[in-house]
C-alpha cells in the first residue's frame, strides 16, 4: 500500500499563494479558513529568505488523533488522516497537539462562536459516502477517490509542492538535492517531525 506524503521544496516555492487559493476555491472553504498557508521567513535577507507551503502533513501516529477527547479521527491505510465533523466538538485540542498548525476553526457555531474543526483532507473527503453532496459540503472534493492529484499540488507551477507515495516523493527530493549540488541529503522539510524520520 502506498503511504501518501506531502513535500514542499523550499528551494522552489515562490510564495505565489496558488496552492492556498486553489484549495480554498476547489473545496469551497468557509470565509477565513485556508487549509494551506504559505509562510516566508527571513524576508529581505539575501540568501536566507525562503517560503514554504504548510498544511496538514498527515503524520505518522498523528498527535491530533491521540488527543481528541471525542475520538473523531480515523487514519486510512494510505496514511491520510481524516476526521468526522459530526462528532467533533471544536474544542481545539488537535490544534494544540499539531506541530504544523493545521486544524482551524470557522466561526460558524452558535452566536458566531468557534465551530467544528476543518483541516486539509489531502483532497480525500471524509467519512460520508464518497462523492456524496454531504461529503462535499463538509469536507470538500474527494479527488483521491477519482484518481486525481490533490488540488494544491496539481496547480503548483514550480512543482515545489508535491504529494504522492513516500518512496517516489523521497526519490524526487534526493534527485533535486543532488542536482543543486549543495546542501546535504537529509529529509524533506518537516518530515522528521511529521513522520519521525
Amino acid at each position, binding site marked *: 500500500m502506498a503511504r501518501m506524503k506531502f513535500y514542499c521544496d523550499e528551494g522552489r516555492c515562490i510564495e505565489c499563494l496558488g496552492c492556498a487559493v486553489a484549495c480554498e476555491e476547489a473545496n469551497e472553504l468557509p470565509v477565513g479558513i485556508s487549509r494551506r498557508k504559505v*509562510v*516566508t521567513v527571513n524576508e529581505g535577507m539575501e540568501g536566507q529568505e525562503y517560503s*514554504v507551503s504548510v498544511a496538514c502533513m498527515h503524520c505518522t501516529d498523528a498527535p491530533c488523533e491521540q488527543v481528541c477527547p471525542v475520538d473523531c479521527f480515523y487514519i486510512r491505510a494510505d496514511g491520510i488522516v481524516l476526521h468526522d465533523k459530526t*462528532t467533533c466538538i471544536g*474544542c*481545539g485540542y488537535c*490544534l494544540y497537539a499539531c506541530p*504544523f498548525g493545521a486544524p482551524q476553526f470557522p466561526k460558524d457555531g452558535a452566536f458566531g462562536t468557534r465551530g*467544528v474543526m476543518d483541516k486539509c483532507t489531502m483532497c480525500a473527503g471524509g467519512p460520508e459516502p464518497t462523492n456524496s453532496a454531504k461529503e462535499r459540503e463538509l469536507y470538500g472534493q474527494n479527488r483521491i477517490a477519482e484518481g486525481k492529484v490533490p488540488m494544491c499540488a496539481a496547480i503548483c507551477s514550480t512543482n515545489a509542492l508535491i504529494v504522492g507515495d513516500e518512496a517516489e516523493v523521497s526519490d524526487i527530493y534526493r534527485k533535486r538535492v543532488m542536482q543543486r549540488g549543495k546542501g546535504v541529503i537529509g529529509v524533506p522539510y518537516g518530515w522528521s*517531525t511529521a513522520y519521525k524520520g
Partner: protein
Amino acid sequence: MYHMAGVQLTKVKGLPMKKLFIFLLGAVLLNAREFIGKVPLVEHAKEVHFTGSRLISPELLHNILHYQTWGELFVYLQVHWFRALFFGITVGVLVVFLLHYLIIGPKKFSHSGKGVFVYSVFKRVVHWTAALAFVLVIPTGFMMIFGKELGGGDLVLTARYIHSIGTVLFIVSFIPMFLMWFIPMLPTLDDIKWFLMLGGYLTKKKVVVPAGQFNAGQKMWFWVAMLGGIVMIGTGAMMYFQDFHLAILDRFGLDQIDLIRIAAITHNFLGMAVAALFITHLYMSLFAIKGSLDSMISGNKSEDEVKYMHSSFYKKLKKEGKI
C-alpha cells in the same frame, strides 16, 4: 519582490521626464486592465494568510522546530494523565465523602430560635449567581473531558457552549464576591488549629471548633474559587479566542500556539482542584451539616451551629451583644 521594483526604478531614472511619464501612465493603465478581477483574489488570499493572525505567520515555521517543548508535553499529558487524574480525583473525593456519611454521619444542630443573621440579600444574590455559574461550568467541563464516552457531536458541542456562558456568569459574580468576603476570608491562627483537628469532622461528637465567620475549609474553597477562578477565566479565554494578540505577552517571547498550550495544561490541572473543592463544598453544605443550606436561603444561621462550628465568631458576637 522589493528588490525587483528597485532595479527597475534605477533603470528608468536615466530617461527624460516626458518619456518616463508616458511610460508610467501606460504601465498603470495596462496593469489596471490586466489585473482587474485578479487583484481581489490575491488580496483576499494575502489577507487570510498574513494579517492579524499570529498562528499563521513565520511563527508557524519557528514552532515546527520547537514542537518538542510544549506541543509534546501537551500531547503526553492529554494522552496519559488528564482523563485519568480527573477520574481518579473525582471518584476519590466521592468515595471519601460517602464513607464519611456512612461511618461518621452528618452533624445536626438545633434550629430553634431565630438564629444569627449572617447573609444580606445582596450577599445571597452574589452567591447564587456564582453557584449557578459553577453548576453550568463544572458538569460541562466533565462532559468535554469524557466526550468520548458521551459520543461527541451536538450534545458535547452544546456543553462546550454552555461552559462559555457559565463563564460569563462567573465573571459577573467575581468582583462583588471578592470584595464582600476577602477580609473575613483572610487566614488567622484558628485556621491552623482547624486543620490539626480537621474541622471536627472525624468525630461523631459535637466539639467546639476554632473558626471565625468562616473556617479554614471554607477559606480554602474561597481562595481556590477566586484566585483559581481568575486563572481559569484567563486560560479559558485564551483557548476561546485562540488568535488574539496581547502586546505584553511579546516580552516573554512565547509563540502564540505555545501560549494556548500552556493555557490548556493549566486549565486542566487547576480544573481538577476547582472541581474537587466544588464537590467538597456541595457535600458540606447539602449533606455534612444538616440544614446549613438554610443560611444561604433565609440569611439566618442556627445559633447552635455558630456556637460549635464557628466558636471564635460566636464569642465575638456575644461580646458585641449581638446574640
